[in-house]
Structure formats: C-alpha cells, structure tokens
C-alpha cells in the first residue's frame, strides 16, 4: 500500500503547526495555570495540561518548532558536506578519491550512534553541539551515496558532450552531474531527517539535547514519565507525534528511493 501520501499530509500538518505556532497555539507555551494542572483533554485544553498547568497542545506546537528547526540542518549539513565530498571525489578520481574512500572506510567502522551520544556529552547541551555531532557522524553515508551515484552519472554521454562543448569541468559537475545524481541523496535525506528526529528526541529524553526549558518532544516525554500512572495523556500525545513523524519521513524516503526515472 502506498503510505507516503499520508506521510506528506502528516509532515505538512506538522510543518504548518510549527510555523504558525505563535498564531495558532491557544496558549503561550510557558504559561502556567496552577488552577488547572494535570488535566485530561478537554475543550479548553485539547491535549490536556501538564503538572505546571501548561497547555500540552501549545507546548507541542512549539516543540515541533524546536525539533524541525534542528532536524533540517542535522540532516541537511551532512547532506551538503558529504554530498559534495563524495561527489567531487568520484568526479575528480585519482588520489583524492582514494583518500576519501579510506576516510569513509575508517568512519564506517565506528558505531555512529554511540559516538554521537558521546560527542554531545562532551560538547555539552545545545543546538550547536547537536549539529556538530550530527555533521561529524552523518556525512559518511551521504558521501557514499554521492560517490556511487556520481560514478554512474559521469559515464553518461551527456557529461562528455557537455565537456566537449567547452564547458569547464567544474561547471559540468554542477550543471549535469549533481542534478542527475541527487535523487538518491534526497531520498536518504528525508529518511535521515526522520532518524535525526528520533535521535534528537532520544538525546533530549536523556537530558543531552537542547536546554531543559526549551519545549521539545523528547523532553516532554521525559517529563511525562513520572506521571505515567496518573496522567497517561501527558506522554501519549508527544509520543504519538514523534512516531507518526518518524514513520512519515521513512515512508516518503522509501517512496523516493523506489521511484525510478
């Protein structure tokens, strides 16, 4: 069954909710109402309230802002860096390619997730250390994909024809090779955003992600775990949102990968 259209709808809704949070959110994300704590979903508070009386829906919308704003660069910077390094290596060939291949093999042997957690722990909390860790560990897969794709595309005759037309080699790379190599990269990019979302939420759950007071899905789930017996709603909505977003990105990524031109 084709699931990706549902994925597109869910992602679009999440992006809209995140972008429009300041206008759509029924309450400010930090506003405490101590007269209405730990409430179940109701007309005033659709997703209920937390132990400080904050509106869960509003906090989730702002959490989506935080998470999506992290997820795009967490996958995007490795995409650009790895894509360029791997693509250029395959295009230029020679010693440069050999060097990149070695580097890829070395990095490939490392347990990415463990190192990522370690890096964040060493670098400290916050968005920038998350992005540094994701870039260091994430560029490898992109470089690998780019290398494979570029090696295929550069043998296509239109690449030689463009070169024979007198186009500088660099321009041939950006005009013909990259655009025709990027489909698989973009497919992985979407899948990778889904994985990055889970990892960021996971790190925040452990308190390694963004700072405590920032609304974030993983942190919300972490806060909710103390109340799992008294207020199930608290963790349910952020958890479901996280799972749906991850599945959506995975299904879109799969659909993109399987699409052949």
């Amino acid at each position: 069954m084709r699931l990706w259209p549902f994925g597109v709808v869910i992602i679009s809704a999440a992006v809209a909710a995140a972008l429009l949070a300041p206008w759509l959110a029924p309450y400010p994300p930090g506003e405490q109402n101590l007269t209405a704590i730990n409430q179940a979903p109701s007309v005033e508070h659709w997703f209920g309230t937390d132990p400080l009386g904050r509106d869960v829906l509003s906090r989730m919308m702002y959490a989506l802002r935080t998470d999506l704003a992290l997820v795009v660069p967490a996958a995007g910077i490795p995409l650009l860096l790895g894509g360029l390094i791997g693509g250029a290596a395959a295009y230029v060939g020679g010693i440069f390619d050999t060097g990149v291949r070695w580097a890829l093999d070395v990095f490939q042997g490392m347990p990415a997730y463990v190192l990522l957690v370690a890096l964040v722990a060493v670098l400290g909390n916050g968005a920038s250390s998350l992005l540094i860790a994701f870039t260091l560990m994430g560029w490898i897969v992109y470089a690998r994909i780019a290398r494979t794709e570029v090696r295929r595309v550069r043998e296509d005759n239109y690449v030689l024809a463009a070169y024979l037309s007198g186009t500088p080699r660099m321009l041939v790379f950006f005009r013909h090779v990259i655009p025709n190599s990027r489909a698989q990269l973009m497919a992985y990019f979407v899948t990778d955003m889904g994985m990055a979302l889970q990892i960021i939420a996971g790190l925040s759950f452990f308190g390694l992600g963004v700072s405590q007071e920032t609304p974030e899905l993983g942190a919300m789930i972490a806060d909710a775990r103390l109340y799992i017996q008294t207020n199930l709603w608290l963790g349910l909505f952020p958890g479901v949102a996280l799972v749906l977003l991850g599945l959506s990105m995975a299904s879109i990524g799969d659909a993109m990968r399987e699409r052949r031109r």
Partner: protein
Amino acid sequence: MLEVDSLSVTYGSRRERRAAVPAVDDVTFRVDRGQIVGLVGESGCGKTSIARAIVGAVPVGSGVISLDGHRLGPRRSSAERRRIQMVFQDPGTSLDPRLTVARTLAWAASPGLRAGDIADETVADLLRQVGLPPEVAGERPAKLSGGQRQRVAVARALAAEPDVVIADEVVSSLDVSAAGAVLDLLRMISTELGAGVLFISHDLSVVRNLCHRTIVMYRGQVVEQAPTADLFEKPGHPYTRALIDSVPSVERRTTGPVLRDDDARADDAAATGCRFRPRCALATHECATDQPALVGPAHQVRCHHAWTTALEEA
C-alpha cells in the same frame, strides 16, 4: 586536417597495462575537411576507444592526435574541445534528461556561465539545420523519439561549429527511416558545412553508401584502409572479405570460407604473428611467426596473403 598518428590505447592500471593487449594498437589515419571516413570492425575491436581517445576522454598510450598540425594533448582548452564533437550510439544517455532541448542547445552553443545570452534564434536555427520543428525546443528528451534525440545530439554537436564530427554507431539503435535522416545529416555536415566526419559502424552497407574512405579494424589494429569503392571492389584482407560477404547481397560472389569461427583461440594469437590468424582459413606458418605490416600507398592491407582468395589457394 584531423590526423591520428600511431595511436595506441591500453586500459587498466599501470601494472596491468604492461601485460595487457592494447585496445588500440598503432593506428594511423586522417580525416580531411568535407570527408567522411568509415571505421568498421566487430564490437570490441577498438573503434569506440579510438573515438574517445580522439576527443580526449581516454588517455592516449602513445601516438599523436593533431588537428591542422596542432597537437591535442590530454588537457584541452575549451576552444580545442569544441573543434571535435561527438554523437553517441545510445540516444538514451546522450542528452541530459533534466534539460529541455533549448537549454541543451543553448549551453552547447555558449558553454560559459552566460548561456542566457544565447538567443532563441540560435536554438531555432540549430533545430532547423537538423530538420526538427521549433516546438521541440521546449521538450525534455523523455518526450522525444530515438531519432529525434539523435538529431538533437547532432544539433548539439553543430552548435560548437566543429571541424570534425565523430559519429559512433549513431544509427544502430534507430529504425530505418530515422537512420536515413541522420545519415543525410552527416552528409550535410560534410558537404555543406565542410567538416570532416569519422563514421564508426559495424554496418558495411551503410559505410559503403556514405563514406569516402573506409578503415577496417580487427583487434585494435587497422587491417585494411582504402577509398571505399576500392575496398569493396577488391578487398585485400580476408577479414574484410568476410565482412563484405556477411552483408546480404543480390549479386553475391562467394570467395570461399574465409572466416573460421574460433574466437576462443583468438586471444592467444595476439603476442606473435597475425592477430587474425586463428580465424583465418588462409593462415600459413608465416602468419604464426611474423606480424604482417600495413602496406600500400592508398589501399593499405595488413596481410601476408593479401588479395589471395581461398579458392585460388585450393
């Protein structure tokens, strides 16, 4: 104009190259202005390697490629590259699938960053030259037929105003009428534009009708080279005769079984003697020990038994 002198091409790493049989071995020929030269031979004989070496896409092992006496090295300037254009066998990968025809042609006409300067006029002119309607300009390759794509590929080659056009099996994947149209374009390129054409093919009947000179290759070497009429009238090499005999013809005159089907042994023959020996019905002791040289002024043949037919032998 285009001169290929003692060209050799060997593939593989440096170590592999030392032992390997060259894909192209000591090939010499020239293509003059307005001339169509045919290059024939079975697949794997080195035709495409020659083409790619001429345009600088594969490294030249030894030998010299020059245009009007100007030597072309492995690193070529934009202007040098534009003088030799290539049209490819597979129209499927010869055009960038993401680009419209207009964009492809505009970029070919002006390869720098300022392709925006190229007027629609130029694109329309190119399309007119290859007999395509102007509406094609807005299409992407997926919407075009094989024949149309091949014509766009020819137009792209013409956009560079080349001195030489290399056509590598350009009609082998086209149906008869589309092929005829593309062949007419090649004639037009040689007569009206005065460019030289190197026509690579395995189809002798096409070569016979199109080319002024014909070069026959076997396992990387030129085995016969002559004005086309001469070559088809009195083929000197047994391989050429076999090729000609394999073309269906009404007034067939058979010359006996020249070609033995013996591919497996052919590889071993490379080291000494004549490369064609394992498949040759005329082979003698001499053919096993001495590699024949390519001899003759206008009609050159590489064979110890040139112009000997099997029937006479018997």
